[in-house]
Structure formats: C-alpha cells, structure tokens
C-alpha cells in the first residue's frame, strides 16, 4: 500500500501574540506542523505498522519551516519526504496547493490513500482535501475522528454539524483527519537519529506541470468587537431579579439569544 500525507507548517496559534494594535506578531510565532496534520500522519503510520505501507510526506513550499516540517515527518516515521518547490507558499491560492498535491500524486503515484489534516492550524479552510479528491477523482471522507484501514477499504467515523456519520470507502481515497482522531507519536531519539541521513527530496512545479497562482490583493481584516460595558446591579435579591430580566431583554435586543 502507498500513502501520501499532505502536510502544512502553520503558525502555532497557541503561542501567537499580538501588538497593542491587535496585529499578530507572526515573526515571533513558532511555525510547526498543525495538530490535525500530525494526526493524519499518525493514521498513515498506524497503517504502515499494521498492514505495511510506504508513507510519503509532502508539503507545498520551500521555506525552512517546510523543510523542517518534512524532516519532522521523517523523524516520526515517514519513509519519504518531499517539498514541492514553490516560492512564497504562504501566499498562493488553495486551488494551487490542491493542484500541486494532486499532480504530485499522479507523477509519483499510484497511491491508495491521501491523508491530510481536516484543516490547517491557522486558516482552517478545510478545502484542500476535498479539492485534491475532486482533482484526482478519488473518493472522499472528510473530518474523520476515527479511521480504520483494511486491505482494500477504510471505515471512518466523522462528526458533522448535524450528527455523526459512519462511512466505508474503497481505495483510492482522500481521508481528512481531525485532531481528535488519535494522539500523534512523538519522535524518539532513535527515530530522530535514524532520520538524520534521510533526504528531503525536492520537486519543482515544472516537473508537475503546474502553474502557480498567487493571491493578489490581500487585505487584513480585523474583527474587533467594542465592549459596551453595561453594568447591572445585583447586590440583593430584588436587584438581582430585576437585573436578570434586564439582562435577558438586553441579550435579546442584541440578537445574542
């Protein structure tokens, strides 16, 4: 079995700080593989352990963070690691990213499964997996909280807004995995040392027949909600009861409830 895991290094939003104007301080924020992406890799490594598989980690971009992300994947246990050499990868359209991964799958394939995180830690658009599936013509299972892979097919439990769905899917398939799916392994020292001499392979857009579309006009939109500082008195039984009524009226007027 051959498996691709598509990975994206993202800002670790849990460590993101903002300046006094509310602008995120991206330069000081660590960049790391997103949690859901790590879970996607873990699913692939579980298949490797149970059924035997070659796990190929790939990312779109050539920055130090992209190279490190792939090296981290190799240390976790991926067999091969690729960067698709696109400049300014933070600033390309989602369809370009999806196209790059799909073309990579065609050129280096065939593959049985493409695993990816259900959403990136920063943008969380959740569209790369479905786009790759459409471009490749593979079946799609999105937002899997639990995955079980057998020889020719996989079952997955997916939590959607309206309930939980259980799917069975034959290969080839794209499966996007949530950060609830598993507890990704932490590379051991032996694994880190073993991966020391593993090469991060490079593949250029021209080898994949790709045209790269960059985002043009990027606008930073701030979502700032002004505080209204409405204070209601609740110092005794009477004022508390009155305030409850006032609070409910206020929240209804504001459209909160």
């Amino acid at each position, binding site marked *: 079995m051959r498996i691709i895991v598509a990975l994206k290094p993202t800002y670790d939003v849990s460590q993101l700080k903002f300046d006094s104007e509310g602008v995120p301080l991206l330069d000081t924020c660590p960049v790391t593989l997103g949690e859901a992406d790590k879970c996607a890799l873990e699913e692939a490594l579980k298949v490797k352990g149970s059924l035997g598989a070659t796990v190929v980690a790939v990312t779109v971009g050539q920055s130090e963070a992209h190279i490190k992300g792939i090296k981290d994947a190799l240390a976790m246990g991926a067999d091969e690691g690729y960067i698709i050499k696109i400049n300014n990868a933070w600033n390309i359209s989602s369809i370009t990213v999806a196209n790059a991964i799909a073309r990579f799958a065609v050129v280096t394939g065939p593959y049985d499964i493409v695993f990816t995180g259900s959403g990136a830690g920063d943008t969380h658009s959740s569209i790369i997996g479905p786009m790759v599936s459409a471009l490749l013509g593979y079946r799609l299972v999105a937002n899997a909280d639990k995955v079980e892979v057998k020889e020719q097919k996989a079952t997955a439990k997916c939590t959607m807004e309206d309930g939980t769905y259980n799917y069975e899917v034959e290969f080839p398939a794209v499966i996007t995995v949530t950060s609830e799916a598993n507890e990704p392994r932490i590379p*051991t*020292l032996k694994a*880190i*040392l073993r991966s020391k001499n593993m090469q991060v392979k490079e593949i250029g857009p021209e080898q994949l027949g790709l045209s790269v579309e960059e985002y043009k006009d990027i606008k930073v939109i701030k979502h700032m909600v002004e505080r209204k500082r409405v204070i209601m008195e609740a110092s005794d039984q009477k004022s508390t009861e009155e305030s409850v009524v006032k609070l409910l009226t206020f929240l209804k007027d504001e459209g909160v409830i």
Partner: protein
Amino acid sequence: MNYEFSEEEKRFRESVEEFCKRYIEPRWVEIDEKGHIPLDLIKRLGEQGLFAIPVPEKYGGMGGNMTLAAIAVEEIAYHDPAVAVAVYTLLQNGWPLALSIFGSEAAKQEILPKVASGDAFFGIGSTEPQGGSDVAGIKTVAKRSGNKWVINGEKAYISGVREISELPEGGGYFLVSKTEKAEWGHKNITDFVLLPKWHGKMSEKVKPTVYDEIGRHGISTGGFKIEDFEVDDEFRIGEINKGFYYVMEGFNIARVLVAAATIGSARWALDKGAEWIRERKLFQGKPIASFQGVNFRFAELYAELEAAKYFVYRAAWMVDNTYLTNSPRFKPRDLDVPVALAKMKGPETATRIYEEVLKWLGAYGYTKESNVYRGWLGTFSYTIGAEGSQNIMRYVIAREVIGKEYVSHTG
C-alpha cells in the same frame, strides 16, 4: 568552536518538550503533592527512549550521548521544576552509562535493557550514615566466598529506594563497598551491582527505609541495611580495589546531569518571574519590570543562568568528545574541573533565581498556590549533596587549579 546545537539535538529537545507538555506538565504539581511518580509515567519515559540515552544500543540503550541526556534532563526539569522526574531520569541515564563502561558483559546484558525500558531502576549506592563526601571512609564490606561476594553494611540518603520495590522488575544500585575489611582509604574499594529486587522478587537481606524529605517529593530517598547479601562475582563492577576510581568517574557523569536538572528548573523559574514582572503593575500602572531594582537583578540572574548552561553543556561535550571516545590526549581526571564547575554553578544559580523570583511574586510567591517553592526546595537539595556536595566541587576545582600540593583533604 561551535556554540550551536546540531539539528538533531534541537529536534530531540523539541520532541522531549512535546512529551513533557503532554505527559509531565499536567501532573508535576500532583507528583510533588502526592510524593510519587506514577509508574505509568516511568514506563512512558522508558518507551519514549528517555532512559539509557548514552548507553550503547547493544545493551538496550539509545546509542546517544551525554549532550542528548543533558538536553532531556534539562527539558524535563523545565516542565517538572520540583525536579523529581528529572532526577529519576538523570539517574536512569548516568549510572546505567557508568555500568555500561565498567560492568561485566553479563551484568550489562542482564540489567541495562530493563532499565532502558523503564521496568527497572538503577542508581548509586555510595553514601552511608556517617557521610557521603568521604567515600574512602565507607564501612560497607564485601568479603569473597568462592565465586560469590557476601556484603554487609548500611547505605543512607539513596535515591530510588521505594521505586525499586514498586517497579515490576525491581532494580538496584552501583554499590560502593570496601574489599574484605573496613579500613579508611581509596585503594581497597570494589564496586558491585546490588539488586535488592530483581525479576519482581524482593530480597529479605536488604532492608529499606524511606525518609521524609522537605522537597522534590516525587522521587524517594531512603536507606537500606545489607545483611549477608550474596553477589555473584560476575556482578562485580570492574577490577577488585579499583572501585574508587570507577565511582568517581560515575560521579562525573552524573554530576553533569544533576546540573542539567537544576538549570532546567531555574529556567522555568526565571521565565515565570519574567512573565510576572511584565504583567504586575504598580505606581500608576508601571510594570515592575520597569524598575531597575527588578530588571538589573533579572539581568544578573539571566547572566548566571546562561553561564551555568555553558558549564553544563561544555562538560557534557567533554564527556562525549574526550571521555566516551577514549581520546588519546585525554585522562579521565581532565573532566574533574569542567564537571565540578557545572555541578557547583547549576544548583547555586537555581536557588538564587528561586529566591529572587519568590520576592518578585511578593506575598503570592510565599503561598503554596504559586508553586514556586516546590522548585526552590527541589533544586536546593542539590546545593547540599547528590553525586558530591558543593564543598567537594570547590575542593576539586581548587585542587586541580591551584595544585594538589597546596590543596589536599588528607593534610
């Protein structure tokens, strides 16, 4: 000269950090409060490959080195500033390495894989009730009887006494003993592997006691009486009457890691202090970090911590690049000063940082809620002893630098 960690060392530190955030940080206060490192955590540390890091792979070790072991111990102490888990880890790296260097093939094959997996403990049994610094003055005696040795004596202030009884396999010590009779001197000492519990079976000939300590409660300290305990000759460590030299080299290994634990904990304290002095505002909204009485002291302590780090990693680097590689330009004693510098500077820097951070936190710092005291008491332990007291470190440095004809403890 290269002051940067390698890519693999950085990646390893990140992996240990991730491990600690997941499995240690949420539990460190509970570990100190309950006075117990959960056995599932010990097993997990073993599974993650954080024990026996510098031990060769053929003995179940990780095939790493002392720099990597120091990174692991420092990072664990950052996430367990009370340092119990870090100390447990350092013991499971330092003394297994010493055994892998001096022990018999049979002892190494038998013991080290079980230590590496987390199923057994292996520490040091040197100190006795009458003292720890005077190794030449120990009174425990091993007498030869055919192909066995019969050991009698008493050890005190020993780490891991309770853990040995709790672990599924058990464990033991790098035991330091007099050969045949208890006369003062360093040329009549032989070391042994003493296993009070092995294959899950506790010997009745070793009677342990656990002490009630004031800090770093998670790992036990205690003593044990040894009565006619028989050890096979193949569990003798190295040559007869060379044990003093082996244990001194073992101390040098372990001291590096003790110092690494203290700087990890100190780094946590200084980070916590920095966070507090940025946030805490006085006198019309000025952060207390804006006052020179605070920020100058911060700078001084930061410099001390950086110096301590350099001592630790320089000593670890020397162990890796001279001692463990048997460099022909090198004698084991060349490690004495670099290691003593690290062991002297690390714990003393840590306690100084804790004292100051406690003051920055004001009355809150003096509450149990702040948890700062846990790290203070934990690291303070290592200004007293553990693989050599602070005065022994001073003695080693003075003796080697000024000259032993001027500085000698034997007059």
